[in-house]
């Protein structure tokens, strides 16, 4: 017991308070890592807020109707869609199907005007192809690649032509061709990537890397952006070449609105992300004229989502080791332990003997004075009786106080009083040897 237990007791109290405060403070910090809440940014989209509207505009409905009447295929300025004209002409045959091609990025009003041109059975806005009642959409990666990398809408037109002519839909025609890039092309791109991690070719609308790149590729990635490729020409396939040049690095290659991933885990990863991204966004991308930066931003958000979805048995990159979170479950028991220790030690100190050891001199003095009083009692006379009686009274009170465990100081005061009375008695008797001071010294000697 004693000092050591005191330290432990108040230490336990302090620890309990600290633990309680830590626990309460930790309540503010809500840690939720959920597969449903990856930090990719998303929000309601307003038309035009992502720069998807272009400066292109269309003539009035009457003018366009006249143009379509004059020419079976009308390409308005700014149009980006291309197709294999021989194939489409052959499919149309003598059906007299007219096609109106409008630029991407029209606003709602302008799109409405294009739809109001009644003599055009097929309308292409950007690379979105609609018929009188139908819309054709690409639905696999090669189709999306052709549509967004080169503006190829051949398959879509053929599908709708067949639908207008009430024929069975033909199979997709894939006119997209890769070619290996030349040494010089790769060297130029690689130099830019080495210098800044980004290559932006002439004509590409990418300006800088979107901020969603951080969570998507925590270890960083290389970006190469090219404008929409010329329809009908083989496209230089930079992805594998760059991935070979930068082994272990993530490489993102952008052609027009078509984004490819190359690098580590590409086999597991690239198709999942591309299919999920273009499956959802193809409609908007085909109609509007998004800058490449915005398409890339959305794509990288999807990469983050896929990463967070835990589809792959790889260690997730977003779980920081938080010592507080590890310790939190133990805090209540730590707290309870401290409380128990404090309670036990407090109880012990309260129930245990409060009084320190009584000084041995007090009972001895009481005994000595009592003996003196008894000795003197046979000698007293009328004059000295009251003092002796008072002395005995005080001695009895002192004895009671001692028995009741009252403080030493009080007992000593009573003994002092008794001693004064006895001294008075001895003085009255004229017996110097009975004065308490002398008597007690004689007894003790």
């Amino acid at each position: 017991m004693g000092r050591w237990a005191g330290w432990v007791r108040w230490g336990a109290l302090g620890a309990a308070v600290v633990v309680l405060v830590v626990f309460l403070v930790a309540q503010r910090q809500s840690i939720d890592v959920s597969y449903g809440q990856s930090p990719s940014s998303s929000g309601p989209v307003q038309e035009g807020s992502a720069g998807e509207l272009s400066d292109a505009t269309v003539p009035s409905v009457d003018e366009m109707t006249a143009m379509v009447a004059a020419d079976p295929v009308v390409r308005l300025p700014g149009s980006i869609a291309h197709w294999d004209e021989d194939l489409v002409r052959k499919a149309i045959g003598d059906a007299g199907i007219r096609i109106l091609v409008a630029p991407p990025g029209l606003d709602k009003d302008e799109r409405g005007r294009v739809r109001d041109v009644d003599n055009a059975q097929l309308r292409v806005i950007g690379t979105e192809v609609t018929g009188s009642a139908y819309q054709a959409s690409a639905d696999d990666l090669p189709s999306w690649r052709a549509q967004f990398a080169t503006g190829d809408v051949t398959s879509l037109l053929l599908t709708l032509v067949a639908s207008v002519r009430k024929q069975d839909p033909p199979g997709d025609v894939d006119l997209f061709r890769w070619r290996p890039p030349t040494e010089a092309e790769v060297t130029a791109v690689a130099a830019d990537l080495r210098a800044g991690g980004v290559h932006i070719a002439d004509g590409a609308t990418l300006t800088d890397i979107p901020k969603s790149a951080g969570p998507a590729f925590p270890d960083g990635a290389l970006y190469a952006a090219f404008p929409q490729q010329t329809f009908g020409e083989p496209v230089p396939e930079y992805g594998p070449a760059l991935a070979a040049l930068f082994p272990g690095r993530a490489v993102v290659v952008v052609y027009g609105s078509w984004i490819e991933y190359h690098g580590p885990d590409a086999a597991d990863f690239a198709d999942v992300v591309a299919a999920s991204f273009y499956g959802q966004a193809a409609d908007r991308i085909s109609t509007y004229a998004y800058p490449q930066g915005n398409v890339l931003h959305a794509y990288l958000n999807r990469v983050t989502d896929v990463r967070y979805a835990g589809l792959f048995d790889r260690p997730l990159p977003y779980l920081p080791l938080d010592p507080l979170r590890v310790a939190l479950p133990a805090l209540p028991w730590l707290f309870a332990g401290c409380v128990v220790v404090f309670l036990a030690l407090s109880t012990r100190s309260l129930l245990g003997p409060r009084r320190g050891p009584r000084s041995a001199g007090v009972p001895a003095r009481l005994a000595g004075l009592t003996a003196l009083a008894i000795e003197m009692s046979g000698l007293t006379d009328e004059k000295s009786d009251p003092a002796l009686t008072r002395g005995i009274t005080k001695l009895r009170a002192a004895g009671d106080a001692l028995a009741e465990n009252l403080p030493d100081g009080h007992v000593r005061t009573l003994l002092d009083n008794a001693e004064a009375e006895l001294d008075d008695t001895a003085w009255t008797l004229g017996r110097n040897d009975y004065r308490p001071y002398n008597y007690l010294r004689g007894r003790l000697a």
Partner: protein
Amino acid sequence: MVLVWVVGVVVLVAAGFGAVVLPWWRAREVERRTAWSAARAAIESAGVSRDASMSRVDEAERLLAKAEAIAADRGGTAAARTASECASRADRLWREAVDG
């Protein structure tokens, strides 16, 4: 789990309260008993002095009666101190009467 915190806090507060109040209450009790012990001693002493006194001292009689009345009612430390005071004064008055 919340229960651990709630019960723990309640126990802590109770233990802290007990740790402060119990010793204080004990000290008060000891003080009271000490004061009464002193008061009883003083009253008895005064009684002896009165018996030894030849003459009658009204003032002392009154004081001792008052002290005994207070003692009969029991009471707290303050009452004991008052009784003690009265008895001592009565004792002194009787002794002066004897000596004088």
